[in-house]
């Protein structure tokens, strides 16, 4: 049976030669405490391993691109990490954006004529263009029930990273991370109002928290 030292060195050599080496192929060759030891050592190596050199083609095919895309919207926007969080929560809850909007509108007691406005605000939350500080607890509580997290979790995410005010610099800076993940993208932007709409309770709920 190969010894742990030899396997660890082979793993590191393969990983440095271009890798990434697959730990499982090495772990399969040992058992018992040897296996546990090799696993711990490989884990220790990976925890200390330097950043891998960037490869734009591999990045484009990697799940890392999706995370970079979401993070780019979050870091460049005004909504904290909502652009990284909300599409993934929605995806995990197996809900389309239209489903979330409809349920959110119901929870907020929106009239039929106000559903498009709810859709626009929710879209802005996912795109990182709606200042998080203005969104009321009532919206976050309702949204949390729909996607399965607490309102506090959403509030915390809204406070994290990105800008605190809407602006173009951050959006421009992170605009070219990648194209949106097709799993989360749905065709069609929320319809813009045909004419200026009077400010109503929906606007209040999404933009006026903390102003009273």
């Amino acid at each position: 049976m190969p010894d742990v030292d030899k396997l660890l060195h082979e793993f590191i050599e393969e990983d440095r030669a271009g890798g990434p080496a697959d730990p499982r192929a090495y772990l399969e060759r040992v058992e018992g405490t040897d296996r546990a030891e090799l696993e711990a050592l490989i884990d220790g190596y990976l925890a200390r391993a330097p950043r891998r050199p960037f490869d734009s083609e591999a990045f484009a095919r990697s799940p890392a691109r999706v995370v970079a895309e979401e993070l780019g919207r979050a870091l460049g926007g005004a909504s904290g990490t909502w652009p990284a969080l909300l599409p993934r929560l929605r995806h995990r809850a197996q809900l389309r954006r239209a489903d979330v909007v409809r349920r959110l509108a119901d929870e907020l007691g929106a009239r039929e004529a106000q559903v498009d406005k709810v859709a626009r605000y929710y879209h802005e939350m996912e795109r990182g263009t709606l200042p998080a500080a203005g969104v009321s607890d009532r919206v976050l509580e309702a949204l949390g029930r729909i996607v399965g997290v607490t309102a506090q979790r959403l509030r915390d995410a809204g406070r994290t990273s990105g800008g605190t005010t809407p602006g173009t610099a951050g959006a421009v800076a992170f605009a070219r991370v990648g194209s949106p993940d097709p799993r989360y993208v749905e065709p069609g932007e929320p319809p813009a109002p045909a004419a200026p709409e009077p400010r109503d309770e929906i606007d209040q709920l999404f933009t006026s928290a903390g102003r009273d």
Partner: protein
Amino acid sequence: MFRPLDEAELQRLDDDALVGYMRRARTAGHPSAALALAILVYGHWANVERRIRLKVPESYVEDLTGDVVADAIASAFDGTSVGEFVSWLGTITRRAIADFYRRGQGRSRLEALPAIEPEAPSEEGAVEIRDAIERVMATLRDDHQRVVDIIVFGGGTAADAVREVAGVTEANAHQIVSRFRRALRRELEAGGDTGST
């Protein structure tokens, strides 16, 4: 005055400098912020993913990796991370794995944790989520930790350790590594590893 860097220059920056560059590029509205972010995410993805795959069922690996990488970078970007980026990333990874089991498989980490944990972990918390390697490393002096890093995790030789660590001989280096490995096996045989499948 912001000076944009090209891809080759960005690749040469260490992680913390890359995060600093992202902040400056964002303020300047310069699109190289996106490239810096891509370099950081891509560069750590495979290492985090493989660490998580060692501990977590395959169907959860990609999601949990995304959570960890996103959390670590977001908190480093907004200045709420603790210490160097790579250590912070390790802390977030261990917490995410420990939490995966604490909360029960199948429940999203996003469901249960604050987005980012901005505060420094308490000593008790840090100990609780340490894995066997970190527990054993924590018992070593700093110079001995460095020897272990060079020889065991860096694939170096005792001669490399002698060159890099003052006051260490090749014989010392071998002894330090042997003691570390014996202590690690004792730790593993005691079954104290956290979060292992």
